[in-house]
């Protein structure tokens, strides 16, 4: 099955073809479940004018936040941003554009993009600034707005385990946006904590089937915690 062996051993190969002006869909929620090594390599590549579709934009000095340092991001499509000072500054300067999208709509836009559904109706955002300029249609007496799907030139995904065929599982809540991101890239690159042989992940326990994945690379992860909260009392 050599044609299905998707493992690459260096980040340059993992991100080959990524160019200025491209759209990248990134998995992760806050700093949880983010493809740390791929993000670092995008910084090294110094590609510019990127559109990044990701629920958040990291923090100062970590996660997607590091791509702000050399102004590599032109536009963010996110539900919640500005956890870092650099982001705010670039936004206020007009160096950075943000398209705020409700979190569930963002997840569904990625899924729809991967699933060949160009648009769907949702009640989320109707009557709010999010709904402005969007088509409205009433179903069962309730108004809904039409939301279009999202696809990317690249998708960058963080998995717990990936096999050589690209089958992935995610660990705990590091799953978040990763499975949808994986489906929505023209080229989908998975950075995994561990690479295993096909068959080691049971077929029905696979979260992302390998058909969505083009390249797999083993990463090492710092896994920085954004809000470390520990139980006050002994439990």
């Amino acid at each position, binding site marked *: 099955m050599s044609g299905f062996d998707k493992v690459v051993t260096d980040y340059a190969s993992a991100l080959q073809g990524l160019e200025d002006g491209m759209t990248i869909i990134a998995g992760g929620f806050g700093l949880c*479940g983010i493809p740390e090594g791929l993000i670092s390599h995008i910084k090294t590549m110094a590609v510019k004018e990127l559109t990044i579709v990701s629920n958040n934009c990291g923090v100062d000095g970590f996660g997607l936040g590091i791509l702000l340092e050399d102004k590599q991001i032109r536009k963010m499509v996110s539900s919640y941003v500005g956890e870092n000072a650099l982001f705010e500054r670039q936004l206020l300067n007009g160096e950075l554009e943000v398209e705020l999208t409700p979190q569930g709509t963002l997840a569904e836009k990625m899924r729809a993009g991967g699933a060949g559904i160009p648009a769907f109706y949702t009640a989320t955002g109707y009557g709010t600034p999010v709904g402005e300029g969007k088509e409205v249609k009433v179903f069962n007496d309730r108004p809904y707005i039409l939301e279009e799907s999202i696809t990317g030139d690249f998708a960058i995904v963080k998995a717990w385990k990936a096999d050589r065929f690209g089958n992935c599982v995610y660990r705990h809540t590091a799953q978040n946006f990763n499975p949808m991101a994986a489906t929505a890239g023209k080229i989908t690159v998975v950075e995994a904590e561990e690479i295993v042989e096909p068959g080691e992940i049971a077929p029905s326990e696979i979260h992302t089937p390998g058909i969505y994945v083009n390249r797999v690379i083993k990463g090492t992860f710092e896994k920085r915690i954004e809000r470390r909260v520990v139980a006050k009392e002994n439990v």
Partner: protein
Amino acid sequence: MALTRDQIAMRVAQEFKDGDYVNLGIGIPTLAANYVPDDISVMLQSENGLLGMGRYPTEAELDPDMINAGKETVTAITGASIFDSAESFAMIRGGHVDFTVLGAFEVDVNGNIASWMIPGKLVKGMGGAMDLVAGAKNIIVTMTHTDKHGNSKLLDACTLPLTGVNCITRIITDLAVLEVSDGAFILRERAPGVSVEEIKQKTKGKLIVPETVAEMVV
């Protein structure tokens, strides 16, 4: 006297029924989890992809891959399920979550809510709030009755950009429990020691005061 944050949370927790799936927003709503009556159980949904959210971890349990929607480290209860964000919002948007509790800047008599954006101030985003107010079967707004300048947050029409329309039916403030119905706030309960008169004064939107208004038990 106006309720404390914990007292508001206590009153919120009285709304829950045994077996409810509940999504609690950041702040006062989160505190409600501490006051669920002993004889009932609710299961907490965290919109980043966790159903059956547990307490905060001990040092030994701390795991960067285990966080809640507020990005805090957290644990899962026995019988929890973990899933992706599309599935999480399928639950929310599809009306499978019984209760959503969240804060707000303003609520109006038509059940509109503004909670995410103050023009002129930096906007960080709506996160999952718009999905939650569009999807939950029951939404409870918790907030102080007035802002820090003493202005009512209960209005005839919200002035700030909206989070959702015609979706709020119940509000629990530091002064009162109110229902939103037919273009008015209906005063259902008042905080211990708070007069109907004070609530009237501090409610800018149309307020209906029934003959009897119970005192909250907190």
